[in-house]
Each structure stands twice: as C-alpha cells, then as structure tokens.
C-alpha cells in the first residue's frame, strides 16, 4: 500500500463509524519501490492531499526524509519539493502490517502490500 492510498482511505464503511480518518498504520515491513516521476500528476494531487496526515504517516514509518511539515504556497515551481513528495506518496510501500480504524480500533490487515478491507456481517 502506497501512502497516497493511505491518504485517501477511510474506514467509514463500518456501521456506526462517522469519519474513520485518518487510519493509523502499524507496519512491520516497509519497502521502497522505484516509480517514474511525473511532476504534473504530483502538482495536481497536492491540493487533494491532507498534508498533515501524509507528514505524520511518513514520519511514523521513518521515511519523512526532511519533508516539510507545512505545505509551502509556491510548491509548483519547486522541483526538489515535488520529487520529495513523489517519493513519499508513491515509492514508500507498506508490505506487511495493519491499518487501524481511529474510532473502533478495528484492524485491517495488510499482507503482500494489499490491505484487506472486507467487513464481517455485523459490521455492515
């Protein structure tokens, strides 16, 4: 699971959960994977991203790599910054671990990089 996916993912499909965001990550295996850098895509995604959540998630995995905690207003021209964001969003992958719902503490296991979001009968 990439941090871009984590930034968008919620657990509000569980019955009774209002926000379900952000999900906590407890990772036991994190890998770095090379992905082609596409500055246009990153620039377009930044307004959609919850920066605080991204920064915290990257820090908890130990891959923040001096990513600024606050979003700079003029990020579009800053290639260095876009590259860093690209790295954190798309190249850091959680292979094994759990996603934890902030409201119910329900765990969604991640195995081989794929989070399992299937719910049980009583959770629908």
């Amino acid at each position, binding site marked *: 699971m990439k941090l871009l*996916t984590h930034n968008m993912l919620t657990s509000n*499909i569980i019955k009774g959960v209002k926000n379900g965001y952000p999900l906590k990550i407890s990772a036991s295996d994190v890998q770095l994977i090379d992905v082609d850098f596409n500055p246009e*895509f990153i620039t377009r995604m930044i307004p959609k991203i919850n920066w605080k959540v991204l920064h915290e998630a990257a820090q908890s995995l130990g891959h923040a790599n001096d990513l600024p905690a606050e979003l700079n207003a003029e990020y579009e021209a800053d290639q260095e910054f876009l590259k860093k964001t690209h790295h954190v969003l*798309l190249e850091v992958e959680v292979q094994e671990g759990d996603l934890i719902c902030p409201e119910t503490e329900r765990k969604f296991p991640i195995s*081989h990089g*794929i989070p399992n979001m299937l719910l049980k009968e009583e959770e629908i």
Partner: protein
Amino acid sequence: MASGRRPEHRAPPEIFYNEDEARKYTSNTRMIEIQEQLSERAIELLALPDHPCFILDIGCGSGLSGESLTNQDHTWIGLDISPSMLEVATEREVEGDLLQSDMGQGIPFRPGTFDGAISVSAVQWLCNADKKYHHPQKRLYKFFSTLYASLARGARAVMQMYPENSEQLELITQQAMKAGFSGGLVIDFPNSTKAKKIFLCLFAGGTTQELPQALGTEDSRQGQISYTDKRERVRQIRNSKAPKKSRQWIMEKKERRRKQGRSCRPDTKFTGRKRPNSF
C-alpha cells in the same frame, strides 16, 4: 461467457475467481484480448482530460484494465474481492495500488478523491445474493452512493457489465439514479448478440453532460415505430429480398455484418461482379 451457465450462478466472486480461473487471465490470449478491448472502450467513454488523472478501477482483477490506464499515464487504485486475482495482479507487477474489498460494502475513500472510475465486467455480480444477509438492492445502493461521494464533481464512472435480463439492468440503473448519478446506458453494436456490449455511463454532479455515441448504431431508427400493415409487410418482404448471390444480396449481407461489428471487405465496383467467362 460462451460456456453455458453464467459465472454468477456458479459461486460467489471470491470463490469463483480461484487460482485456476485467475490463471486464465494471464494465459488465455482470447480472454486477455477481450478484456483489453473492453477497458480501452471504457476509458474512451470516460473522456478524461489531457493531463494525468487519479482513477478508481472497481473489480480490477488481474489488472488488465489498469494496464491500459497506466499506458495513458494515469495513476490508479484497484479494488477486487478475489484474493487469487489480486495475487495474479501482484505477480504481473501492475503499477496501481491494490485493495481487497467488496464493492457491495461501500467504496472506502474520502469524498472527491477520484477523477473517474471504471469497471469491467463486475457490476452484475452485485445482483446476486450470495450470503444470507445480502440484499442486492441495498448493496447496489451502498455501492453507488459511496462511489458518488468518492468521485470529484463532474467526474464520470463507466461500467461495462453483463446484466442477465432487463430486470437486472433496471435494478442497477434505478439504484444509480437514486444515489444521485445522472447519465445512462451506451450500448455498442445493439444489433448483434455477440458483439453487443453494455456500458453504464454515469456522471457525478457538475454540469449536464451528453451521453457519448454508441458504436454500430449509425442508421438504427430509434424512437420510430414502423408502419405495420400485414399486406404491406408481405409486399415489402417480397420486393426487398434480392435473389441470392446477386450484387444487392451481397451488399445487404455485408451491411448486416457491419451492423454487428464484424469484419468484412470494403465495397468496391468489383463487389458481386460477374467473373469473365473464360471457356
């Protein structure tokens, strides 16, 4: 789908798409070709802007449709319920991020996340109640309403599907409209049983958009009821049938094939021309 019974009747998707079935999506070239064609067409109907977009692929399976998205420089997330299919997708090292989830339980993403959504041959699975607590209508509504929320305003969702009958089709479209979508069906090659493909083309809010044109419907007279007097009809049939192997007969046959989306040679001045009599 040619092998008799429909897969939805055999087992729930997470069981039907087992290792053997999933393997077919890497080894069976015919299946791969059909999936690729369907996803290319679905992406065409999405009418995405020229810049790289963020797309949701519902029922991504082994990631064939995702590969078409990657080829066009888009980034995607794929959902599927079958672990075997997802395993094949990881083996194929697809670019998109994968998630195991049941679309009938809702799309677990923040509002306004995606610039578009596609789905190839998946939505008809929702019409089945595979577990005791499954209500197709409720599951469809949950799916469409959460999908609507996760799309950006003005984004499209294109779903190719194989509904079993008109009731299923109505159930699906009804729930989509109830969830707030506008749009409708685009049916490619409606005159052919084999090449006919049904795409549900949905718009999530924004300005009113026009439905894209379907393929193979150039001169189908829609919304017109032909005059049906029995004697008139008999006369028409008598007059319209050209003698076999005549030029007109050949042209009619080719026209029929074209309507069904099958291949045939272009019409030239040589079409149906008599060969010279060499003794």
